[in-house]
């Protein structure tokens, strides 16, 4: 491989380097120049976190071979403002709270800057189009739009720059819109996430993952990989010194596959090497002999007698069943004037935090094994790892690096154990950064659900009984399935006082990608079915949807589905406020959209038609203000 010599200007400084010919501009900026403001969210041009200017044009640096930037002027997030300063766009992001986890934010700030440079008068539709290549998973974009419009106004001189400063505090800091303290480091790209961190003498890890959904591991031969120049170690489950196994509720998952693999993408072995490429090449030298086993991919089939067994400890493939019973459902249905019965389903959903999993482990001078990672549960991870590596708790230390989005998806200890083992084996810092594809196949998802629902009601809309049965595919490992089933069962029938109910939620093992914790922890799946049923009932009874909810809502003193007496309950106020805020026109939900009088209005947006800039005069070469 011949080196590539490149000369370019980066943030107004001349740069001359020799680098590898296959490097992307993103690699060059991050690895060769240590400019880590541009992030790698997907590596495929689909998320925009790596956006930089090349000769004034915004590009995705993960899609640009570095040679293309040769002779060009590159501007990164670090170059937008002098150190300690922020541009109006950055200040506006700070002011409006447009950064949450912050991982997409350098790219988003670059896109916003580009939008206002291209057209300082851009309207909101054009701004949205110009941000269309940048994904944010936290903010819902709303505060970002607000920030760009604010910056536009300040740049145009229509708004005083002082508007971007902190609001004065009143009598208390409680209830005050204090600007986020972490925003300046996020909008300027200075905050270092785990993948941005470097330590001297650090190794790079790559993971060999299962190509099979269910297979017995007959043998693993790592000798050829271990013999490669630049490889520091290869680890497998054989290297686990203590009691292997992790999980949020049941410790059924080994650090790396032990004896068999249970899903595609499960870690089988890992290599730590001097550089990423060597580690990747070493993976192809590891020989794993598999014997494929029949797999189970459907949660209903998983419960059938004779189905393949995923875990020996659970011969019926049930991870957890949660029952909730209250009153007498037979009597309740007998008292009903209307009985509705239906089925609902929800899909597996990815957290899609913009920061893929990443971490560093090292052994400190006091023989403490330290793991730095964006973990949502360092407390529990420390406990589990101490058993796995057989060390006292105070010899295991977890540091939570800035989390680039979690949503429950970073509660599972799916890679920290491998890092710890490699650090212990080499006594060198080891870093592992997942690719997006790796994150997708190896991390847990939102549980898909199949709900069978039966609801009885009287003519006046009072629910007399509910039968609720939910089946979820938990995938190959238990992770948070037990808790998700519990929460789904507790919340199942919604915020309504139901005298008679029979609720069952069950998660089963399959050989699919595991399901785990995800924002609402089962609550969303269950209440989607309930809230659909409420509208179907309202239609059948000719009632307004707010009204039927009021008839049944929980109040102070109500007994919940688990028979807890509520000492506070605000649904009455919440429903009233929603009805008023939305200018809701009363009526039964009989598909009356075309007759409604409450549609549109200033609290809705215009439909997106695309092309906001097309019918405007050419602005590309036109006026340019400093954005």
């Amino acid at each position, binding site marked *: 491989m011949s080196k590539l010599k490149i000369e370019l200007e980066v943030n107004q400084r001349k740069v001359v380097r020799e680098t590898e010919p*296959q490097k992307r501009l993103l690699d060059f900026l991050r690895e060769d120049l240590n400019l880590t403001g541009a992030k790698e969210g997907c*590596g495929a041009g689909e998320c925009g976190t790596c956006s930089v200017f090349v000769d004034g044009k915004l590009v995705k640096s993960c899609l640009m071979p570095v040679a293309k930037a040769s002779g060009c002027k590159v501007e990164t997030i670090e170059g937008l403002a002098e150190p300690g300063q922020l541009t109006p766009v950055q200040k506006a992001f700070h002011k409006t709270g447009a950064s949450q986890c912050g991982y997409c934010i350098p790219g988003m700030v670059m*896109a916003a800057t580009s939008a206002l440079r291209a057209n300082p008068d851009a309207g909101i539709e054009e701004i949205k189009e110009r941000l*269309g*290549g940048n994904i944010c998973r936290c903010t819902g974009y709303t505060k970002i739009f607000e920030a760009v419009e604010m910056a536009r106004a300040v740049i145009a001189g229509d708004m005083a720059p002082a508007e971007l400063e902190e609001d004065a505090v009143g009598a208390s800091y409680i209830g005050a819109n204090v600007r986020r303290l972490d925003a300046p480091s996020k909008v300027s790209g200075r905050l270092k996430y785990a993948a941005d961190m470097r330590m001297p003498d650090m190794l790079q890890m790559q993971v060999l993952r299962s190509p099979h959904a269910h297979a017995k591991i007959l043998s693993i031969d790592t000798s050829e990989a271990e013999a490669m120049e630049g490889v520091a170690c290869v680890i497998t489950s054989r290297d686990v010194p203590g009691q292997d196994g992790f999980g949020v509720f049941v410790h059924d998952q080994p650090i790396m596959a032990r004896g068999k693999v249970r899903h595609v993408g499960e870690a089988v072995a890992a290599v730590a090497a001097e550089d990423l490429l060597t580690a990747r090449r070493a993976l192809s030298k590891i020989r794993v002999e598999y014997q494929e086993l029949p797999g189970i991919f459907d949660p209903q089939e998983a419960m059938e007698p004779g189905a393949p067994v995923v875990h020996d400890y659970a011969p019926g493939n049930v991870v957890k069943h949660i029952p909730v019973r209250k009153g007498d459902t037979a009597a309740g249905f007998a008292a009903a004037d209307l009985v509705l019965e239906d089925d609902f389903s929800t899909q597996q959903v990815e957290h899609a935090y913009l920061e893929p999993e990443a971490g560093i482990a090292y052994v400190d001078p006091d023989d403490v094994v330290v793991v730095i990672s964006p973990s949502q549960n360092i407390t529990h991870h420390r406990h589990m790892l101490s058993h796995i590596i057989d060390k006292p708790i105070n010899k295991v230390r977890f540091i939570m690096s800035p989390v680039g989005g979690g949503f429950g998806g970073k509660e599972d200890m799916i890679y920290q154990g491998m890092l710890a083992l490699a650090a212990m084996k080499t006594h060198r810092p080891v870093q592992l950064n997942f690719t997006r*594809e790796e994150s997708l196949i190896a991390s847990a998802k939102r549980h898909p659900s199949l709900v069978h629902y039966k609801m009885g009601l009287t003519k006046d809309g009072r629910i007399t009984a509910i039968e609720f049965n939910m089946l979820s595919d938990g995938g190959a490992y238990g992770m948070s399935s037990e808790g998700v089933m519990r929460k789904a069962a507790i919340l199942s029938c919604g915020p309504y006082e139901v005298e008679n109910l029979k609720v069952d939620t069950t998660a089963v093992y399959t050989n699919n990608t595991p399901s785990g914790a995800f924002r609402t922890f089962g609550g969303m799946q269950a209440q989607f079915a309930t809230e659909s049923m409420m509208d179907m009932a309202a239609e059948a009874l000719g009632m307004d949807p707010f009204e039927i909810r009021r008839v049944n809502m929980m109040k102070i003193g109500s007994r919940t589905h688990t028979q807890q007496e509520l000492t506070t309950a605000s649904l009455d106020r919440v429903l009233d406020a929603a009805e008023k805020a939305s200018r809701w026109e009363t009526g039964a939900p009989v598909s009356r959209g075309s007759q409604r009088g409450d549609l549109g209005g200033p609290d809705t947006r215009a439909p997106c038609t*695309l092309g906001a800039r097309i019918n405007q005069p050419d602005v590309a070469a036109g006026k340019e203000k400093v954005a």
Partner: protein
Amino acid sequence: MLTCDTYHMPTGLTEALTLWSEAPAGSRLVSGATDILPWAREGRAGDVHLPAMIDVTRVPEMSGYRVEGGRVRLGANTVYQDFLSKDDLRRFLPCMPYCAIWFADDQIREVATLAGNLVNASPVADGTPPVAALNGEVELTRLADGKLARRLVPVGDFILGPGKTDLAEDEIVTAVILDDATGYGGSFQKVGQRRSLVISVACCAALVKTDASGTKFEDLRLALGGVGPRPIRLTEVEEALRGAEISHGAIAKAADLAASKVASRSRKEYRRDVVVGFVRAAIEEALGNQPGAPVEIRGAGETADV
């Protein structure tokens, strides 16, 4: 990930063709690079090692555009953003801005080329229907005895099937040649799972020109993408409307005729349903986008066949 031994950036066409003809087997030409890098990842090609990558974006003979004899010659390095940002291209090629705004996003439009989109020969490429509607030809160049040898291939013949083109081993696409459609109204319809940065399920490009009175179709061009291995030019529909009175009824009839042309293996029913609406909307929007006085579409709207 993508690795290579050498990355070339030739600065002349002869140099590029020479490098290309001498490159070791397995080497690749690179233009915008917006597809090759995502291709060499897990789930697609996985890790790929190329002996050489030959980047043609600094070849001046492949850059820029010019109008000759009612045709627009776009150098192969013309990027999608040019269709939005360059006034004269917007005038010459009235359906291209609408295609471009649906194509990917600003960042990718800055580097992705129309020629590259055609070479990828994806059945769901956004670029092929408007090129077909503009009677597009692809200019292929190779070295023959040290001299440049060019040939022109209509886009419908250039794309042979998913990922397959008529490009010979030693050839490079050097230009895309399209009708100058100044005065036409253009439009582009697309549906995917969202509005930005999405691969289309189906798309439709239209060009419309009315007669001087604004009551009849003088000319009409329609092409569909995503409904078969190649773009489909709806010549029968065009014929049926050429010279016809502009009315909702005529447009609806044309749409129904278009649906019968749809023959995609997957999601056929959905695509057929979409096409009916798309053709109607494409014609109506193209009429609305025609420069000059607004065009009135007569007759009541008919109930869509859904």
